[in-house]
């Protein structure tokens, strides 16, 4: 047992808004284990107040460069809920297709860019180009495919413009959809190679389990990312999205300026593993087969396996996209002509972001001006659970020594695929 453990990554992170891991132990006795994280920016809520119902989704799509479709869709659902706006089946299929594009992009990038270097023993993806060039090229290709889906559906590669309350500003052509279908089908072999790479590294995933409450959308019969109520692994009862505050139950922790969340226990987890644990029975055939191949079974409570669940969901996104395109083509593309008359009201929307369930709610006055907003992001819901994982993990792995323990803790945070500092993206340089 090492005499002294002193982990504090704060000194290497001078970037505002980032999380800090602090662990102190002496002679095998753990003295401090803290996941310290600042409040994720809430100023976007103030920014949409006073804006028209028609511009909100465009503004909130800029909240996050990785989850721009999810933020747009959560806003649209909340606006449509507030004003009772009907949405066509075609629009919803197109939204889901865009969402699948975002899942492919985000999951592939997370697994390839942040997780694979850990499992392959290198510091980042940059040196991985020398050691595993084919894997990196594969990640770039698959990410580009997700990009293409978003471009065809959302009208641009990121921060979509085509979505609007009650419909679409533009719909893709039949030719574009056929071409997209061919691109997705053509990338299936790449997906298999990615799965084989992950399968080959499965033995390096840390063996750590903690009984956890998992929370995600649930909708009988589907592996839902968009429809349904809020479900928990602790109960068969579900909660309507409009009552999301009753499940989030934000509370203050002394070590963090970010509010934490709890439902039935002290904490819960959202994200790919939560969705898998609640909805695995509804995966499409290829995705279900991938879960079996990768050894992921319902009831898994190893948070590091969240990345494996992301690979399974990437397959699901491929399969679901092909299905959606076929449905759109079979039904025939129709112009979206619905006109919306704004009105006062309050509404909420939930969408599963790649990193967990995202809630938006808005209130509007009579002419559709936003008078109140709330954005509850998945990472804030996960912070308490990261803390509880660390509290169990540190004593279990203390004997491994400081460096290995730090690596395990950083890998744990990465496994949650957090959205820690997504607001500003400024370069910070010194001239050499």
């Amino acid at each position, binding site marked *: 047992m090492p005499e002294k453990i002193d982990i504090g*990554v704060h000194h*290497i*992170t*001078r*970037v505002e808004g*980032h*999380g800090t891991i602090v662990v102190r132990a002496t002679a095998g006795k753990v003295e401090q284990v803290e996941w310290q994280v600042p409040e994720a*920016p809430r*100023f*976007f809520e*103030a*920014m949409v107040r006073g804006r028209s119902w028609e511009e909100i989704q465009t*503004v909130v799509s*800029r*909240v*996050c*460069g*990785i989850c*721009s479709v999810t933020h747009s869709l959560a806003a649209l659902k909340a606006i449509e809920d507030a004003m009772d706006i009907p949405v066509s089946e075609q629009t919803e299929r197109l939204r889901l297709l865009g969402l699948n594009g975002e899942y492919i*992009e*985000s999951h592939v*990038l*997370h697994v390839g*860019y*942040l997780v694979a270097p850990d499992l392959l023993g290198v*510091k*980042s*993806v*940059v040196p991985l*180009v*020398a050691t595993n*060039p084919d894997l*990196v090229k594969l990640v*770039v290709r698959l*990410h*580009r495919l997700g*990009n293409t889906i978003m471009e065809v559906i959302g009208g*641009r*590669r*990121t*921060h979509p413009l085509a979505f609007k309350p009650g419909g679409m500003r533009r719909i893709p052509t039949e030719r574009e959809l056929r071409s997209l279908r061919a691109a997705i089908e053509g990338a299936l072999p790449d997906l298999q190679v990615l799965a084989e790479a992950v399968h080959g590294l499965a033995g390096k995933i840390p063996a750590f389990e903690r009984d956890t409450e998992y929370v995600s959308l649930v909708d009988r019969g589907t592996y839902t990312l968009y429809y349904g109520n809020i479900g928990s692994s602790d109960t068969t009862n579900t909660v309507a999205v409009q009552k999301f505050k009753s499940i989030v139950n934000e509370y203050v922790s002394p070590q963090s300026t970010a509010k934490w969340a709890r439902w039935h226990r002290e904490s819960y987890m959202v994200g790919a593993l939560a969705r898998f644990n609640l909805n695995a029975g509804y995966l499409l055939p290829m995705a279900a087969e991938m879960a079996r191949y990768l050894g992921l079974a319902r009831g898994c409570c190893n948070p590091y396996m969240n990345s494996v669940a992301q690979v399974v969901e990437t397959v699901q996104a491929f399969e679901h996209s092909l299905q959606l395109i076929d449905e759109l083509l079979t039904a025939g593309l129709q112009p979206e002509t619905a006109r919306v008359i704004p009105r006062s009201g309050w509404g909420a929307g939930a969408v599963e972001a790649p990193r967990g369930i995202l809630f938006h709610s808005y209130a509007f006055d009579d002419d559709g001006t936003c008078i109140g907003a709330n954005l509850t992001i998945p990472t804030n819901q996960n912070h308490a659970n990261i803390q509880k994982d660390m509290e169990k993990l540190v004593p279990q792995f203390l004997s491994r020594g400081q460096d290995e323990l730090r690596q395990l803790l*950083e890998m744990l*945070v*990465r496994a949650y*695929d*957090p*959205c*820690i*500092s*997504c*607001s*500003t*993206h*400024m*370069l*910070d*340089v*010194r*001239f*050499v």
Partner: protein
Amino acid sequence: MCVLSDTVIIGIGNPLCGDDGVGIALLEALEGRVDADLVDAGTSAMQVVHALAGRHRAILLDCARMGLPFGTLRRFTPEEVANGTSLPRLSLHEGDLLAFLALARNLGAAPEEIILFGIEPASLEPAMHLSSILVAQMGDYLTAIIAEAKAPFHSI
């Protein structure tokens, strides 16, 4: 199949965060004024990797903390700078542009010429507009960027 221009101009940043959005504001102002593809990468650095592929020249526009007076525009290449911070690599949202440029280069998917225009921010407070210091210099920024886009290749 669309044809790529030899030159791509990529705007980076978040228009909700004051001067952090200067790259996007410049990109919008360049519409129709340069013979180049314009790409809004937002805050997603991986978009930059895709946008670089198949080009001869890339011009990147980004807010940059360089230790210079507010509003200063400086032209530099990736080789002339190093990261001023060490990112903890805990999240995909860290958006380490220099690392992604290195990745593109190592993959052999980057143009020979990569030019960055960094603009020193005056304010990063939440706002959907630039600070008055930057607004006053937008014309000068655009002149410099347009001149760069028109210059012959290999002008580094």
